[in-house]
């Protein structure tokens, strides 16, 4: 199945794109999507401890399952305000 990955701020710059379409196996979770990204972008690895994620524009846990067509967002620490 295919998911759209959204990247922000420095993660977007490290990934070279704000949006990536990824093929993931059935049963994939947010965590497994992230792991597949880290394989392509080793610099991402440092972000895991401080990362937040969302599925379809709702905050989610890394253990959340993803479905075909989902938008999965990975977010470095926020700095609004």
């Amino acid at each position: 199945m295919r998911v759209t990955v959204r990247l922000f701020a420095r993660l977007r710059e490290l990934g070279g794109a704000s949006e990536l379409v990824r093929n993931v196996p059935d049963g994939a979770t947010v965590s497994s999507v992230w792991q597949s990204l880290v394989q392509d972008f080793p610099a991402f690895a440092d972000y895991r401890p401080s990362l937040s994620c969302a599925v379809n524009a709702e905050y989610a846990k890394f253990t959340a399952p993803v479905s075909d067509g989902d938008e999965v967002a990975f977010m470095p620490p926020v700095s609004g305000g």
Partner: protein
Amino acid sequence: MNARTAVTESVLDAALLAGLVEGPGHGAVVTFLGLVRDHNQGRRVTHLVYEAYEPLAVKALDRIVREAGERWPSVGMAIHHRTGRLAIGQASVAIAAASAHRADAFAACRYAIERIKQIVPIWKHEFFEGGDTWIEGATADPDDPEALERAVRIACA
């Protein structure tokens, strides 16, 4: 832009926000504007660029308004956050909190800015003399009870 919460590229207007939340039972309105400073941690800042995950950022602002309304039931609140390129002195965030009595308006307004910095998916790209850097603040977790308690403690201190 008359929504109580918004993420926008337009100039922010605190008076507009105050007008959205004022009611005849309110005796106080407190507004907060976050401005772009010309310096940060010893660096001479030239400008900032704010980036948002907009749909989730609006939901996070809505959540903060809801949280404030649960804690201070008489409070009316509006929050707009700006994105894009901002010059020194421009406002990046505007909050208005109205309530019957001033203590609640001050507390709710302060609470909102603390929570914004905790849970709203917006990022600040700082450009300064000699370089640029992404500011990374808090790992966003709206359900983290310690972060929420910290915001409450600062607001109600």
